[in-house]
């Protein structure tokens, strides 16, 4: 469709380092073909079987009956390497994290089996028939809810990102960590969560006007507990029973978990068992000793709930390799705990010049937004960056700015701009630039 004059036009640079005008992505005949051809250039793609001839007019799949139906579908065996990376304690295998392999995924939905995990003492085995959610404390009538009862309430579904407060914490390190983007920034995932608005259950119990908080507890080993402001619980929190259309996975809180849109992961208590309405927070271990951020002046930020706007380029990204110069789609994810992503800019010259990336629909509040930009790599060293702005006007900070403000001991809430350096041999690494 694109005539030669159009293509000349879209190939005009939009910023330094080979970033092209956004329209380059829309000119399908031209760009998408090259982007597809360029894709296998990244290391880590599934190997093509050496013996088969890709041009064989009669491949076995055309002439052999296929496999029978499967009661529950699984990814292709060629994709078996696409897995969560696990990091856990030597003495307590259920204490640690697993990261979403962001570098291997497209779109905005994280497959449930690849959603990141943070468990403090393993994944409990819970019989849904025996499980109860108790609401008590400053209420007119303490109540318990069975799963069966919750099933009957009107539900809501929402597409939301969920991010651990400790995501990207390697960004505080003195030296840039060299890991695939998922094993650095992958304590964030995005799902459709469906469940019962908590406000409805609170109303049924009759919350006393003195209540300001709920101490929320899980049914895991150690009964993880954390205090959540009541106003937020009423505003938009869900008792989620479903993730991406099916019942929660055990490692995501089966049979029920709290969903606290846009706020740090620890509050989204899995295996939800108890809400204790109170006037004051409990000052539990995970809201004092942990999930607080030590600042250079020796004080610590506490109750830092909102996950501020952040973006990261997922391709090209660290540990990948570009085989040839030429066209690439720069793509990544952006999100903000305050609402919608308004804008993502990308730079290919380390932040000297920027151009707007294309935001792919849908752009939803507190949800992953996929962004894309067209890039013509000259073969010279380049530094790729992305910068998110959310609808409140908040702009993702440069690392230098964040570190100047917060020091490097805060551990949690690292949301600085990420820089990937492309060397002249096409290798991509993480740099502070």
């Amino acid at each position, binding site marked *: 469709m694109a005539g030669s004059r159009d293509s000349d036009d879209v190939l005009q640079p939009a910023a330094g380092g080979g970033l092209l005008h956004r329209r380059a992505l829309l000119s399908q005949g031209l760009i998408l073909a090259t982007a597809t051809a360029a894709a296998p250039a990244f290391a880590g793609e599934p190997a093509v079987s050496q013996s088969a001839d890709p041009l064989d007019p009669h491949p076995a799949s055309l002439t052999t009956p296929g496999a029978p139906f499967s009661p529950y579908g699984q990814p292709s065996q060629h994709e078996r390497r696409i897995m969560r990376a696990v990091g856990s*304690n*030597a*003495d*307590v295998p259920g204490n640690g994290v697993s990261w979403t392999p962001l570098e291997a995924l497209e779109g905005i939905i994280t497959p449930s089996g690849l959603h990141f995990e943070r468990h*403090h*003492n393993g994944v409990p085995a819970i019989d849904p028939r025996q499980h109860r959610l*108790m609401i*008590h*404390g400053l209420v007119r*009538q*303490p*109540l*318990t*809810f*069975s799963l069966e*009862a*919750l099933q*009957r*309430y*009107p539900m809501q579904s929402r597409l939301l990102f969920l991010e651990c407060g400790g995501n990207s914490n390697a960004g505080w390190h003195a030296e840039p960590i060299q890991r695939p983007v998922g094993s650095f920034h992958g304590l964030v995932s995005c799902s459709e969560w469906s469940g019962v608005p908590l406000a*409805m*259950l609170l*109303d*049924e*119990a009759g919350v006393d006007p003195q209540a300001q908080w709920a*101490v929320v*507890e899980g049914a895991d*080993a*150690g*009964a*993880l*507990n954390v205090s959540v*402001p009541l106003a937020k619980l009423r505003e938009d929190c869900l008792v989620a029973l479903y993730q991406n259309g099916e019942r929660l996975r055990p490692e995501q809180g089966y049979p029920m978990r709290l969903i606290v849109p846009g706020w740090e992961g620890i509050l989204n208590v899995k295996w939800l068992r*108890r809400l*204790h309405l*109170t006037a*004051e*927070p*409990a*000052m*539990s*271990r995970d809201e*004092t*000793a942990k999930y*607080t951020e*030590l600042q*250079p*002046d*020796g*004080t*610590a*930020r*506490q*109750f*830092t*709930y*909102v996950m501020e706007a952040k973006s990261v380029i997922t391709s090209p990204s660290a540990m990948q390799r570009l085989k040839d110069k030429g066209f690439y789609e720069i793509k990544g994810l952006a999100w903000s705990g305050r609402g919608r992503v308004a804008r993502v800019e990308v730079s290919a010259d380390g932040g000297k010049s920027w151009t707007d990336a294309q935001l792919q629909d849908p752009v939803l509040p507190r949800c992953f937004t996929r962004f894309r930009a067209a890039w013509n790599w000259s073969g010279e060293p380049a530094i790729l960056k992305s910068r998110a702005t959310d609808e409140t006007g908040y702009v993702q900070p440069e690392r230098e700015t964040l570190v100047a403000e917060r*020091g*490097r*001991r805060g551990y949690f809430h690292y949301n600085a701009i990420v820089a990937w350096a492309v060397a002249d041999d096409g290798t991509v690494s993480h740099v502070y630039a």
Partner: protein
Amino acid sequence: MSMRRLVLALAVVLAPSAYAADPLRLGKPVPADVVAAWDTTVFPDGRGLPQGGGTAEQGRAIYDAKCSNCHGPEGRGETAEELVGREIPLTDPDTAQTIGSFWPYATTLFDYTRRAMPMDKPGSLSVDEAYAVAAYLLQLNGVVAPGDVMNAQSLPKVQMPNRDGFKRIDAK
């Protein structure tokens, strides 16, 4: 039914306020004794702390038997984090955020130990054991004396060195 009436009828059924005004009431009332048995929340002012108590002297043996394999002798850290340390100020880049240097409330130590530790057998400590081992960790951090009894009255009164070190950001 006219189209307009139908729309009105649907609006009444679907309005979210209809839910609020007429809750389903499928929650089951719970007797007070069941609530009490489930309610393990402990507050900084001591509310929720159970009857019982223990000293650092009693806690030492419990710690050596049930905690040191992961947290190291005298809380110095091993596969699990260190539980002791106050020498390096929090403003120093090499500081350690420990019970003594960082934790604002002693009640949190009792609560967390009772619910989550030892990690290979959470919830297995008796109330007295949890008080005693908390007393021992507080004593190792130089916050209480070896003979001090930690219980529902004394624990909330322990002055933690970093009590005022926190600034609330997104909630008051």
